[in-house]
């Protein structure tokens, strides 16, 4: 289904859509305010961008270095070409440990690989432990935002859900009450899990360590109580040096939620005595994207979500309208790389205002890539409704006589044509837009009369 179709579904609840828009703008505003307290903010963005450029230019070297150091630290390193192989590797580790129930903290990569349904089909209970992710998991929904997974829901929805799933009081919508109910529910899961899965924010080639950032502490509650920790990592998450973390940790939380740092920033270097750590390095389309000169920069993304919070389209259409694991502007340049046909409407879900590029902490030229994808998609698809009208317009503007005649015709026609024609399906610009009142005379005629 196309982005416009799904966006109109989202917009049916006007009050909720307005709340969504304003709330994300508030997060964007917090990001602005905190970034202005750092005099070197723009320099940090430039450095982060340069470090990531260096990573993409030397990716195989850093991956090999990371693997060597991680292995020296007693970490098991696995490589997966695609989602299927990633899922098989994870399942294999679980089977080796006769594990039937796992806890999982936020990992967009495992969403991308559809790990949850795969494990569930193999008889394994998966519990997402990030509060927002647990909420959407209860609803059998994917996250609608990469940092704020349940931002499309209101507390009334969550209150009803928790009443059904966690037996909370009917009608109690107090966020503290609901969060503490989830705390008790998830504490039991943490204490019972033998294996915990996490994502990875940064993998450090120099040391073989990897860093996971959360505010809830759910990743750590899971892995430190379990015997086995499986960390799933896209190959682009590598950074060269430990000190590069100084740059990225200063940028990440400030860009994501407007806070100076996430409350927990865990550096995993080797397993605790008697325990195991596995890292699964996943390609799944990343090497293809690296080979696309115009789009490879999208791999610099550190998944802060700032481009979503600022995007006028995302804020007014919701994460689900994109139909992709990563929504919003960054999702609209990543997803066509995975399946250009399925995600063909996403690069058009933008005003090309460039706000995404302005807030991106690693300076990805998001809006330029959106434009580039449009060129690729239009070439591949041929004409569509909008381009037919554009072609007609092109012919009219090119010939002065045609322009003159058409102008007079339109001024007459707009007055007498019924709305059913002016706002027909062929004119997609007619949706939620009113035509201007037509002037009685042309500028040319007015000029002749008044400037003799």
């Amino acid at each position, binding site marked *: 289904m196309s982005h416009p179709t799904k966006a109109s579904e989202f917009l049916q609840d006007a009050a909720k859509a307005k709340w969504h828009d304003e709330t994300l703008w508030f997060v964007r505003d917090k990001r602005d305010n905190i970034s202005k307290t750092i005099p070197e903010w723009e320099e940090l963005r430039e450095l982060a961008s340069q470090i990531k450029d260096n990573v993409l230019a030397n990716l195989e070297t850093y991956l090999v270095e990371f693997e060597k150091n991680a292995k020296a630290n007693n970490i098991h390193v696995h490589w997966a070409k695609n989602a299927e192989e990633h899922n098989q590797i994870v399942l294999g580790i679980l089977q080796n440990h006769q594990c039937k129930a796992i806890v999982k903290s936020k990992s967009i990569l495992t969403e991308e690989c559809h790990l949850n349904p795969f494990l569930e089909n193999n008889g394994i209970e998966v519990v997402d432990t990030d509060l927002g992710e647990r909420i959407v998991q209860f609803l059998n929904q994917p996250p609608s935002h990469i940092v704020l997974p349940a931002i499309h829901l209101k507390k009334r929805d969550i209150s009803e859900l928790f009443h059904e799933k966690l037996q909370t009081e009917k009608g109690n919508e107090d*966020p503290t009450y609901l969060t503490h109910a989830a705390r008790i529910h998830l504490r039991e899961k943490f204490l019972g899990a033998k294996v915990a899965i996490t994502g990875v924010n940064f993998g450090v080639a120099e040391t073989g360590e990897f860093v996971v950032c959360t505010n809830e502490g759910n990743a750590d509650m899971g892995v*430190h109580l379990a015997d086995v920790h499986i960390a799933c990592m896209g190959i682009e998450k590598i950074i060269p040096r430990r000190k*590069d973390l100084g740059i990225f940790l200063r940028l990440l939380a400030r860009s994501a939620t407007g806070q100076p740092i996430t409350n927990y920033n865990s550096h995993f270097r080797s397993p605790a005595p008697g325990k195991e750590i596995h890292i699964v390095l996943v390609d799944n389309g990343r090497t293809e994207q690296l080979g696309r000169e115009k789009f490879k920069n999208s791999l610099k993304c550190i998944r802060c979500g700032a481009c979503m919070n600022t995007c006028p389209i995302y804020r007014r259409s919701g994460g689900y309208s994109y139909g992709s694991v990563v929504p919003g502007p960054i999702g609209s340049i990543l997803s066509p790389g995975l399946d250009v046909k399925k995600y063909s409407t996403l690069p058009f879900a933008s005003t090309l205002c460039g706000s995404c590029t302005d807030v991106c902490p690693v300076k990805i030229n998001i809006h330029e890539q959106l434009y580039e994808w449009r060129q690729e998609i239009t070439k591949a698809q041929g004409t569509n409704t909008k381009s037919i009208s554009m072609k007609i317009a092109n012919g009219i503007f090119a010939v002065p006589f045609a322009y003159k005649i058409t102008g007079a015709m339109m001024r007459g026609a707009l007055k007498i044509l019924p709305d059913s024609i002016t706002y027909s399906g062929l004119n997609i610009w007619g949706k939620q837009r009113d035509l201007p009142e037509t002037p009685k005379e042309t500028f040319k005629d007015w000029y002749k009369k008044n400037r003799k």
Partner: protein
Amino acid sequence: MSSREHILAKIKAIPKEASPLPEIPSFESPLGHKAAFILSIQANKGEVITESELKDFIAINRFEKILNLTKGMESLSTQPLPSDAHELNELEVAIIQGQFGVAENGAIWLTDENMGLRVLPFITEHLVIVLNEKSLVSNMHEAYNKIGIQHSGFGLFIAGPSKTADIEQSLVIGAHGAKSLRVVLTNL
């Protein structure tokens, strides 16, 4: 060909332009570290308290399950570190020593040797970190310079209590981990 070889070969086959790795300046701030650190901890919903305020906090709440890993507050401890992390589930207060703090964001660096068991600062109901104010650094660049090549199996920057805003963006303290963070600044 293994998946490893396959992925590495694919990356290698892509023509790439050289792109230098930049050096990182220190960006040191001339401001006083202590005042900035206290403000940062408060903004993260933690508190900075004195040793006597810590004793009051424990007495008023009548906490009985207290685990101390610092030198100097042994008298507050009511239980030793267990061998199994799961036994910490009922723990009310953990008191641990921080290595250093970061003024710009309130982050405190801990490693395995400070935590005893890695889950300790997360699973405890209330967390207390004792920190020497002379250890404070300006920002994260200075922090990683200070960490240098230090080798620990697990390192943690902790900046506040467990928190979430996943329900309508309303901030709630105490999601899964510690419901409070208190920092005792010492000057030794």
